[in-house]
């Protein structure tokens, strides 16, 4: 199990080659013990690895990701490589273009090994909602790696690739990172382009890194972030050399522990892990204070109005007309739509499309969507208020440890409750990071979540870096 920094060092010191590293990664990806992959791009990976070795031989290596094997969640488009979003609807969809993040990783020399499993269109927290297969947690294959970026989490945690990209709409990077002992960062909304990322909920979706270490995550973020003319919501915030920002410590930083985030039914080991992390930060010179984010309790309901509304709209294009699953025996247009969509979408996707369609319907819009947007503003203000007196908000990432794959499957509401600590950050568009903070008595990873001010990934990363080293 090697970090990006370690792989990079091996390549730089010529102890190994990108082709060797890629060959090993492809072999274990094909073996795929934890069902992390939906597609493997052997030809593309080998060509990229060769090109990387040639660059290095010429003394023209591109940077810390050159020759490093990575994986992409399968809702991130890859030109010429099937991209399914974990859905039968797109089982045979080969994109004619790269997502901006894909192109940027390629430009940085990264070697894309394959595409990773996810809950269909990113809707879920277990990867069980994939139309193809559930992914297993490398720490305990009978348990979930979390979701929806569970495939990326498992691929990195199992050491198949150095790092991976996930997408996070309500916690889909952070929760699986927490469940598999990784660092997962959801950047500030707008920092990373969404162009070429299959939309779930456009006002919440962000692409971000999943990696073994804070430094690795920083390196991946550096490669993918920045303004993109093809995404009107992408920010022109200045690019940063994150690695330089990591080592300045936490002395003088103020850490807030929101009392609303210590929820009922929270696992006792998770609870004490958060408090222990706070103690460690205090020992490093930060001050820890209790804070309140009073509208937290409305975040779940708000999210489960806004995200399904946007999803019901974003998924309207999958109609069987131009691409994607098309019912074989439809005789009329309406039947073509009904059958193609009934056959192409899984139950959780249908549930959210129906929820969103209902909430946007004439006569219900004000009661649901508009109200949810108003509450979203209140949740955002909670954070703005809190960040006047603290620099970082610290909490658990998930209130529970990874559950067994055969648990909770038939209770969607219980599943939704698992996202309660990651949703507010998404609604407020803030950067959020999950990192390992210990292991349970049963040997399962525990994660803590750090939240920062908008576009203040620098403070987030240096706090995480300090916590990681101690």
């Amino acid at each position, binding site marked *: 199990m090697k970090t990006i920094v370690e792989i990079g060092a091996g390549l730089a010191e010529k102890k190994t080659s990108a082709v060797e590293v890629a060959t090993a990664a492809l072999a274990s990806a094909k073996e795929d013990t934890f069902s992390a992959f939906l597609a493997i791009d052997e030809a593309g990976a080998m060509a990229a690895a060769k090109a990387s070795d040639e660059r290095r031989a010429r003394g023209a290596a591109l940077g810390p990701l050159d020759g490093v094997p990575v994986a992409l969640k399968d809702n991130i*488009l890859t030109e010429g490589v099937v*991209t399914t*979003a974990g859905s039968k609807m*797109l089982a045979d*969809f080969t*994109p*004619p*273009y790269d*997502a901006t993040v894909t192109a940027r990783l390629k430009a940085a020399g990264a070697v894309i090994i394959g595409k990773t499993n996810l809950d269909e269109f990113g809707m879920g927290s277990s990867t069980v909602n994939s139309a193809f297969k559930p992914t297993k947690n490398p720490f305990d294959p009978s348990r979930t790696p979390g979701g929806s970026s569970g495939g990326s989490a498992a691929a990195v945690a199992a050491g198949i690739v150095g790092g991976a990209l996930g997408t996070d709409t309500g916690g889909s990077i952070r929760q699986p990172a927490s469940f598999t002992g990784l660092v997962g960062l959801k950047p500030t909304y707008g920092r990373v382009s*969404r*162009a*070429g*990322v*299959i*939309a779930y*909920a*456009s*006002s919440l979706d962000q692409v971000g890194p999943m990696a073994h270490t804070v430094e690795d995550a920083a390196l991946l973020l550096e490669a993918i972030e920045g303004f993109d*003319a*093809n*995404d*009107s*919501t992408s920010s022109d915030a200045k690019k940063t050399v994150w690695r330089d920002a990591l080592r300045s410590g936490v002395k003088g930083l103020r850490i807030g522990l929101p009392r609303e985030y210590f929820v009922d039914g929270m696992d006792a080991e998770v609870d004490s892990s958060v408090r222990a992390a706070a103690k460690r930060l205090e020992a490093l010179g930060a001050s820890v204070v209790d804070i309140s984010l009073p509208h937290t309790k409305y975040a779940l309901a708000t999210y489960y109005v806004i995200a399904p*509304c*946007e999803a*019901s*709209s974003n*998924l*309207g*294009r999958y*109609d069987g*007309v*131009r*691409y994607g699953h098309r019912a074989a025996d439809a005789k009329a*247009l309406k039947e073509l*739509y009904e059958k193609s969509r009934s056959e192409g979408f899984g139950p959780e996707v249908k549930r959210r499309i129906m929820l969103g*369609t209902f909430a*946007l*319907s*004439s006569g219900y*819009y004000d009661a649901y*969507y508009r109200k949810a947007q108003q509450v979203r503003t209140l949740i955002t203000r909670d954070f703005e208020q809190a960040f006047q007196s603290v620099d970082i908000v610290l909490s658990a990432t998930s209130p529970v440890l990874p559950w067994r794959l055969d648990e909770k499957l038939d209770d969607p509401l219980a599943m939704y409750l698992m996202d309660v600590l990651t949703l507010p950050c998404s609604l407020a568009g803030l950067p959020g990071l999950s990192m390992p903070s210990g292991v349970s008595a049963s040997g399962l990873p525990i994660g803590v979540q750090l939240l920062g001010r908008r576009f203040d990934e620098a403070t987030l990363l240096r706090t995480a870096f300090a916590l990681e080293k101690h």
Partner: protein
Amino acid sequence: MPRADFQVVIGLEVHAQLLTTSKLFSGAGTSFGGAPNAHTSIVCLGLPGVLPVLNQRAVELAIRTGHALECTVAERSEWSRKHYFYPDLPKGYQITQYEFPICVGGRVVFDGPDGEKSVRLTRIHMEEDAGKLVHESAASLVDLNRAGTPLLEIVSEPDLRTADDAVEYLKALRDILVWIGVNDGNLEEGSFRCDANVSVMRHGSTTFGTRCELKNLNSFRFIKQAIEIEATRQVEIIEAGGKVEQETRLFDPQRGETRSMRSKEDAHDYRYFPDPDLPPLLLTPERIERSRKELPELPRARRKRYVDALGLPAYDAGVLTSDRAMSDLFERCVAEAGEAKPVSNWFMGELSRLLNETKTNTADVKFSPVQFAALLKAIKDGVVSGPGAKEVFAELFATGKDPSLIIQEKGLAQVNDDGPLLEAIAQAMAEAPKNVESYRGGNTKIIGAFVGAVMKKLGGKGNPKRINELLTEKLKA
């Protein structure tokens, strides 16, 4: 006449395609025609992962339209998604402006048969067009060339009361849009389309009747027909004791009827909500003001100025301002020539004739205003005769050569010197002694025959005024 007791009430929704080279949210081209789906991109095909990026040129044209129609241009407007399932709509939604349009209020002023009229506008908003379906016997085919083309939807208040006024309003609106360069005004190709909301009420009533929306009105003639047919249909329903149902109706020009497309109950629930892929459209007061300053003088104002300041007849003013390029060229020629009426005469006469005959666009004429003014001066100075000037102008139009050069090359210079004139006069008098006697006997009208004869000897190039003077002198002697 059942109509006599009733007042027709009409409101119009115009969809005008903006003259941009690319689509509203993608770089794909917008030209009409082309092989099906040739003008498409990953964005207008609605592929997974694509995002809209606003065409700023389209925004400029929308702002300009807002100023031309005296609207309030909003500093903040918003994009919404309008949802329905149909194969002409690749994303399953149309990006449009709903709660917050780019322009609010405004009006269109036009001259109806009974004087000036003003129709208030409700709003103007921007939106993307849908594609189209081609129905064949075995299948329906989808052509997405038009999908994503930028449109303005210009919505009037229900201020119109006759089908004729509705047509005049549309013509005036179209003239303005074409004049300011935002639309090509083409009804047949569908780049200027109109839906009409029609209701009837008894004269003196203060509440409008139930309205029906009429679609498929793709010529001014059809618009007039459809409104009149629909109004009669509604009146007949009411007079028979029935109630008009609110619905969308299709005009069938072949059968001369409107028929139901969908009732209010069948109406789509479009589930509008703000498009999360697009931030609100924010316009600075400076940008709005800059566009206002750049707005050209509009045709009505220009017509008025031609009459009031240039002293042209209203008819001339109307013809000259029927086309922006013609009017602009006229302006420049007047500026060079320093007078309007002679320029107007040439424009309304020879220039229009030549443009028509050669099917030339005014924008493509070869001569410059300086050259045109030089020709007028040559006429005034007697360098070239009236008939000669027409020949010069024809050559000027065809080649763009300087008039002085044309006069020289074609030998069209007028003979003004007394020497050759007197010589020709002497010959003419010698050839017709009886006519000389006749003149001297009091038949002064016969001078015309002498002028003709003299002119003939000079190949038509003699200065007619001087010939007249000299002849009179010689004949009297």
